[in-house]
């Protein structure tokens, strides 16, 4: 199939060989599991259990609430120790409400929803409900609740379900391993999702540096004429949703639109496998494959990890550190987030835990920009990092916004190639945060202004009405004091509005 070029990008040192040939191993149950109520984009789930409750594996322990949310399930059987604040796996190091579960070691499944025996005759609602019920979120890292994305078929006419198996981040091999070891489950999940979405075609995009995965997936897909595996060039950030769509279909997603507006929905390959598990066996998302790697890890591996396992326990399972890690990163080295400590849990969006040495990170104090233009050449979004960073340094954020800083998705290509080691992404993240704050502030004051104007109009109308009433009454009763009454009423209204 003809592929389409994508702009820019880089070829970082992938170092996938550290873990790519390690078959998935199962992590033994740790002493305690820490299940945060929010592991996804959207509202945190609502706790359903109390201290001391006994739960079975797969039992829902927190229910999704609000439009965008996801449920949490017990990753194993055991006793709820407590529900308390625990440091979140987020660079802020802020705490969030977390259910602490002490496994009883029996790992007994609870009562699960009935398997959907023939999903291809079931309607989209049944499948989406099951996916929502199973707490499935995007497993590529963004952790957006999958059921919502599966509902897009109701709103838009879709023609392709694109499974993202690019795994363009260096070090990460979890999707590669899942594709090699569970190809049939992924393809079954994908077909179920395509059925729910109403897309006639399924396309699976895999970077060419995973030849075994491509071969195995192609074989598994060969039985289904509408499922196609496509090898895409090795070019970071090929795994970016919009860029993968462009590479495979040639369609360029307009700014501020979704790929779904072009008729394409993108899901991660591991998400498809989770959907297979949920639909065929009623099993919720309680574990995921995590790549534990990096130069400071003694035995890099791909580990099937119960959700809520502490990073410290996972690292210990992989032989601990062989060198002092300069940073421990949640996700890939390009777009992953630094962890504030090792005492944070693995969550549904954790694709990798990387312990990187100073040598691997190769950080250095920034030199002056020599305007080499490499950042412009590699930017997959067609932005001009050199110019944007210059304006951000001078705090001219509005100019940076005009130059498109909000279109930057922080892929890190510019920072990676910068010979002066300028932390460009850091500048852009700062600018994006500040501009978002400004925007919120602006819409808030906009809202206040509107409310104030509405109120003025209301008061004017009321006063006008009073005056009219007064004028009508005037000949009858001249000695009353209506002005005072009007004022008093206005004051009351003001208080009510305050």
């Amino acid at each position, binding site marked *: 199939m003809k592929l389409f070029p994508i702009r820019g990008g880089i070829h970082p040192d992938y170092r996938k060989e550290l873990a790519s040939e390690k078959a998935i191993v199962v992590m033994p149950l740790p002493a305690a599991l820490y299940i945060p109520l929010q592991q996804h984009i959207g509202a945190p789930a609502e706790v359903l259990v109390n201290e001391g409750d006994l739960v079975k594996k797969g039992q829902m322990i927190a229910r999704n609430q609000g439009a965008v949310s996801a449920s949490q399930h017990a990753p194993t059987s055991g006793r709820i120790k407590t529900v308390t604040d625990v440091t979140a796996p987020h660079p802020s190091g802020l705490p969030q409400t977390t259910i602490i579960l002490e496994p009883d070691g029996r790992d007994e499944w609870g009562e699960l929803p009935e398997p959907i025996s023939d999903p291809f005759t079931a309607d989209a609602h049944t499948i989406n409900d099951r996916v929502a019920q199973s707490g499935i979120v995007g497993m590529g890292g963004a952790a957006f609740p999958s059921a919502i994305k599966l509902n897009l078929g109701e709103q838009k006419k879709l023609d392709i379900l694109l499974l993202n198996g690019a795994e363009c981040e260096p070090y990460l091999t979890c999707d590669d391993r899942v594709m090699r070891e569970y190809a049939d489950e992924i393809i079954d999940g994908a077909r179920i999702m395509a059925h729910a979405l109403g897309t006639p075609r399924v396309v699976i995009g895999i970077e060419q540096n995973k030849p075994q995965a491509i071969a195995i997936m192609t074989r598994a897909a060969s039985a289904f004429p509408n499922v196609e595996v496509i090898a895409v060039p090795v070019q970071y950030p090929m795994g970016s949703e919009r860029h993968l769509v462009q590479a495979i279909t040639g*369609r360029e997603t307009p700014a501020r639109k979704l790929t779904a*507006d072009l008729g394409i929905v993108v899901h991660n390959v591991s998400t498809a496998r989770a959907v297979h598990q949920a639909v065929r066996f009623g099993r919720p998302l309680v574990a995921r494959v995590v790549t534990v790697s990096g130069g400071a890890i003694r035995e890099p591996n791909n580990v099937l990890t119960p959700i809520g396992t502490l990073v410290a326990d996972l690292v210990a399972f992989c032989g601990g550190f062989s060198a002092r890690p300069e*940073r421990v990163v949640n996700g890939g080295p390009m777009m992953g987030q630094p962890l504030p400590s090792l005492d944070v849990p693995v969550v549904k969006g954790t694709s990798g835990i990387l312990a990187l040495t100073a040598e691997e990170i190769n950080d250095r104090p920034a030199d002056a920009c020599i305007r080499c233009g490499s950042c412009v050449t590699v930017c997959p979004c067609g932005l001009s990092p050199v110019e944007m960073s210059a304006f951000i340094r001078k705090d001219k954020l509005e100019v940076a916004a005009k130059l498109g800083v909000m279109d930057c998705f*922080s892929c890190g290509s510019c920072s*990676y190639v910068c010979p002066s080691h300028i932390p460009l992404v850091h500048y852009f993240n700062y600018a994006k945060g500040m501009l978002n704050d400004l925007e919120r502030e602006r819409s808030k004051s906009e809202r206040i202004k509107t409310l104030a104007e509405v109120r003025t109009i209301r008061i004017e109308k009321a006063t006008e009405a009073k005056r009219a009433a007064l004028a009508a009454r005037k000949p009858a009763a001249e000695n009353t004091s209506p002005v005072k009454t009007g004022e008093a009423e206005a004051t009351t209204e003001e208080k009510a509005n305050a």
Partner: protein
Amino acid sequence: MSIASISKSGPYAHGDSSVQKTMFTVLLALTPATLFNLYLFGWPAILLFTVTVGACLAVEAGCLSLAGKPVRATLADCSALLTGWLLAMSLPPWAPWWLGVLGAIFSIAMAKHSFGGIGQNVFNPAMVGRTVLLISFPVVMTTWIAPHPLFSAGAPGLFEAIAITFGGQMPDAVSSASALGHIKTELSRHIPVTESMAQVPGLMDMLLGYRAGSMGETSAILILAGGLFLMAKRIISWHIPLSVMGGLFLMAAIFHAVDPARYASGTFHLVSGATFLGAFFIATDYVTSPVTRKGQLIFGLGCGVLIWLIRNFAGYPEGVAFAVLLMNGLAPIIDQYTRPRAFGRTSKGEPLPLKEKP
């Protein structure tokens, strides 16, 4: 265990590029052409080269310490070394020592540090140095010599060289016109290019570099080799060199076709003067050229056309330095008008219209 401060955003990986490595690679690429010319022009060239580069480093150190910036660390980025090297390559090989020192002061102190140091200068420092010298000392700056290879008969020994470089005792009989200068002079005497071309070195000598010229510019072949090496190392792209040479060649070829008696051929313009050095090593200076590919093409074409205009219509026989400086001044505005189109947006910055699905 402790994790170092997490204040800085990712990525937590970095390519092995650095300013020092970039500059060093450029120096490496310049080495063959430089060694050849030092050999070709002998001891006086070696002395002047050393003085010029040394003066640039000294002026850089002085400026840095005046500005309160780290001296040793910044000197290590090799940028002053490169400026000095390029400046030396643009000087007449047997010029007196003070020319190199003055050039260093103009290049490093005036063109670079008064703008804020590395990365901040608008104009190419080495070319500012050369141009100031050319305007101030036109005679010394255009006193060319015929090749006097080291250890050949008639080549000055070390002591004679010291007398030439530091004593100002230029032997009378050795000077020789550059090919561009020769043609210009002859034209002013109403001798057509078609006749004056008979006295300039043949195409092969011009290509290999066996000719009179600045200290580092004569060997088109070796400079081309260095330039290709830089492209292979992805330090420079083809856009600027090709468009400089393309612009120059096109202008020259068109006018040569119209009036061969007045205008030299495109090939002649390519191999004479500092065309190759300018196209591969001077116009490609990162700091003073546009950052986008499209901008680089416009910039290069502008340089090429200006080189030809200056060589043919201005008072000087050679125009590379002037052309590059003029285009340097335009680089910021070229950048502004050649920004790439953002993903998902039109070139005006509006979101792309949602097309009907195919």
